[in-house]
């Protein structure tokens, strides 16, 4: 069932409104700066939940003459994005104030910070809601620009360099997706005269009409999409921007990058390549090879890192491989597993980045494994959160990462791609090892050196640990009772496969 609704407009409008309030009034009033950001994210989350509830009841929403369209996948994404955005905003309150006290930034700049965060949320909503491939491209570029400004928020040389690299690589990369779109349009226009050829909802139908002669064009378009959106997702070999940007950004923004920004790429791929995968076996193998390479190279690079944020960034490269692989399989189990892992990765990777942020908060900015030891006694909550994230990512039950990986292994086995399953299993154990190793080096052991021996070291304030705890609890809840998000994932998978 389809219904016109103003909720999708409100989803984009609310964060924009919040951004306007922050940017105009935030300079003077803390309430208009931090309050408006929290409020904006909260209301967005509320609307997202309303939308998802409607979709779960079987109603697809659209507005602005089908320019915005909410189906299962969109509703899954908007709930996830607004939830994590809210958590990150709450986390930022104390964290960024602390940065001001440390002299890394000023109160005036916080206006820009929260304003950009809200704009980012709006852009994310736009990506997830738009029904046009061209507008999706525009919105994705929007998220890139906003986050680039957030990456170089401290305005220091390293941050600027990372941000420059980020913009350059991602914009150039996503351009390929634009080429792909153009190619597809040129091919599609002749088979769908008089119809909007680039609406996502129409795409599957049009491609089904392609004769064999158009196969080359559409395969080329797929390749362009994988390169373009793969760059955004941080897939090897287009991942070079990712570690730098993650390392130099403020900790909440690192969580944002790994938790949400790279998921945009996965989302866009879910919208596009899954349409082609059932038609061409080559696509499945091509994507599986790309994804497996990403997993392997990401995890090997992660093992070599001493800087925690870079370590986590390389894990993101590795984990996004699972997501893309699942989407590339194009079967029910594959897409389900890919989306499940997308959700799980957002939760545990945001949790991990926020935990590392908490460590930096408490130790005055230390983030090298070799500099840290025995922090767990003074910071038990942070330690617990980090380990929960680490084990979830390592894929051990009873945490959420296990269920999505399991689904992906089963999907790979179903397609008889045993080599891909083997790589997935191998990377899984390497991930577990790498994360647990880092975790016990930082948090366990007898505190013999600074900063663990510093009597001033204490647990982070409640607003920081509470936002981490929410994510940790979500990881546990989904892990213990995976059926809890089955309805939403099922809808999302169905609506992808329906094309």
């Amino acid at each position, binding site marked *: 069932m389809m219904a016109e609704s103003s909720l999708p407009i409100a989803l984009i409008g609310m964060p924009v409104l919040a951004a306007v309030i922050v940017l105009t009034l935030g300079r003077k009033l803390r309430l208009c700066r931090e309050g408006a950001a929290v409020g904006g994210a909260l209301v967005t989350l509320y609307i997202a939940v309303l939308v998802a509830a409607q979709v779960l009841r079987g109603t697809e929403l659209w507005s602005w003459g089908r320019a915005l369209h909410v189906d299962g996948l969109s509703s899954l994404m908007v709930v996830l994005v607004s939830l994590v955005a809210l958590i990150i905003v709450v986390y930022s309150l104390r964290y960024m104030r602390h940065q001001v006290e440390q002299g890394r930034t000023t109160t005036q700049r916080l206006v820009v910070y929260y304003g950009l965060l809200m704009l980012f949320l709006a852009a994310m909503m736009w990506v997830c809601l738009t029904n046009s491939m061209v507008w999706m491209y525009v919105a994705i570029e929007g998220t890139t620009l906003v986050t680039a400004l957030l990456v170089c928020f401290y305005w220091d040389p390293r941050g600027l360099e990372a941000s420059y690299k980020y913009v350059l690589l991602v914009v150039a990369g996503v351009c390929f997706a634009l080429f792909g779109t153009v190619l597809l349009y040129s091919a599609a226009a002749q088979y769908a005269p008089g119809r909007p050829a680039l609406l996502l909802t129409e795409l599957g139908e049009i491609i089904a009409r392609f004769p064999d002669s158009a196969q080359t064009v559409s395969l080329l378009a797929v390749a362009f999409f994988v390169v373009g959106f793969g760059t955004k997702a941080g897939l090897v070999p287009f991942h070079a921007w990712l570690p730098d940007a993650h390392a130099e950004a403020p900790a909440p923004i690192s969580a944002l990058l790994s938790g949400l920004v790279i998921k945009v790429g996965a989302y866009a791929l879910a919208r596009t390549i899954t349409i082609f995968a059932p038609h061409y076996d080559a696509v499945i193998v091509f994507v599986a090879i790309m994804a497996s390479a990403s997993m392997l190279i990401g995890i090997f690079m992660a093992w070599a890192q001493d800087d925690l944020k870079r370590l986590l960034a390389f894990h993101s490269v590795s984990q996004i491989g699972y997501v893309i692989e699942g989407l590339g399989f194009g079967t029910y189990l594959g897409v389900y597993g890919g989306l499940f892992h997308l959700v799980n990765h957002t939760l545990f990777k945001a949790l991990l980045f926020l935990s590392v942020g908490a460590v930096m908060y408490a130790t005055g900015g230390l983030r090298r494994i070799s500099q840290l030891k025995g922090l767990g006694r003074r910071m038990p909550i942070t330690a617990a959160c980090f380990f929960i994230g680490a084990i979830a990512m390592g894929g*051990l*039950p009873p945490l959420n990462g*296990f269920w999505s990986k399991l689904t992906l292994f089963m999907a790979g*086995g179903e397609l008889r791609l045993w080599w891909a399953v083997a790589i997935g299993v191998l990377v899984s154990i390497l991930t577990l090892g790498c994360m647990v190793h880092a975790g016990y080096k930082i948090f366990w*052991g*007898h505190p013999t050196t600074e900063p663990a021996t510093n009597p001033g070291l204490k647990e982070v304030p409640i607003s920081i640990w509470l936002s981490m705890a929410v994510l940790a609890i979500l990881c546990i809840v989904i892990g213990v009772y995976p*059926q809890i998000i089955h309805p939403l994932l099922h809808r999302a998978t169905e609506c992808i496969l329906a094309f």
Partner: protein
Amino acid sequence: MTALAEISARDLLVPLVAAPLIGALLCVFLKRRASDYVAAIFAVITLVLAAGAIGNLFTDLDTTHRLPLGWLANLAGESGPAPLVFELSIDALSALMLFVVTVIGFLVVIYSSEYLSPRNVEHPVTNGKGRYYAWLLFFVGAMVGIALAGNFFQLFIFWEITTLCSWALISYYQDEASLRAGFKALIMTAVGGLFFLLALVLMYLNLDTDPFAFDALGRLAPGLRSLVFVFLLIAAWAKAAQFPFFTWLPDAMAAPTPISCYLHAAAMVKAGVYLIARVVSASYGLSYGVGLLSGIMALATILIVVFLFLFQDDLKKILALSTISHLGYILIACALGVWGSATAFQGGLLHIAAHGCGKGLLFLSVGMITYFTGTRRISELSGLGARLPIVALGFFVGAFTVTGVPPLAGFWSKFLILTGGLELGGFGAVIAILLLVESMIAFGFFLWVGQRVFFGAPSFDMPQGKGVAWPMTTAIIILAVLCLAVTLFALPVIQHIPLGM
């Protein structure tokens, strides 16, 4: 009373798993004495529930009480229903395992209350007890879960939880050696776990109905059945510290001794052999070849380990190595079971209980030695018998149990295994003779160790009468009695465990 009588074993399954987990959650927030009491209370509750469930089952040991709990909707095939994933059940084999896990778990909790104290000479402990009990009870819950799991998938979930707990518990002292050992144990057992996972994937992909049920192997095509069995076997090797994975177990002796007793003698390593026992008990048509693989690897493990432990000076490492070889015994018994010897298979099952009690007792005794003396090197110890008579008693009873001196439990189990092997003849007889040789070497060695440690001139000063720490002494005495009595309980149970043919 009538209401109580109407409770069936089925109703007790969820509380049984939940009780230790609740206790674990509470212990996170408690300290010192308070955590002692809460942990003991929840251990007792678990024990009572287990007694209730087993007692209830005793009226009819041939039934399986099943309690389905949940499905995974996304795994539903095109046609078939979603596979049952979450399920608890209890039958004779579960009861045997449940008995070992809860009884020794209870004794270890009691024992720990004294062992982890500032009075411990080897490792004085002043704080962190809440964390210790939380992980220990979490582990008890996971072990109970393994015993009560109703299908392979559920078993796997609890299996991985025990891996996690074992990592945290081995690392408990947080010095460099224990952190490293915990990490090693985690990675090695997790590698095994991934093979288990692959076995599950294979079962799921090749069976339309009930892919994870215990009898699933019998329904697979023969080649695939062997492959899945080998994957499960690799998982079991990792968990039960068999060749080529066995190196993590001696390292894991960096754990507190009650943990070594529980995880590395009585419970966790037994999960590995329990899995294989499950498979052998429930599957039809396992090939001769997989039995051969299982038997030869176990035999290789036993023979390698015998040579390793002759050169050990560390008491706990000796026990660890001996544990490895005894797990090999049980796997050999399972292999003989695959070849059709019900006698040997039952002997192996009895050995799960017998070795759990005997080796547990040995560990607790050695723990008490280190508690008073601060060392566990044989070369530094002598003449402890006069000062610590209970410990000497515990050590010798434990040693006689695991090496198989009648009338202790280990004798009956080894007797059954050897009889089964000789009955089969051929390679089975060769195995039986090799096992006999190993038993004699181990017996001689343990006698020598006992004589060296407990007899002769005292190596350290201790005032008369100080050598009593009642929680530890109580645990040792109860376990020593069990070494004799466990056969009475276990023999009737194992008669009812079928052997899949």
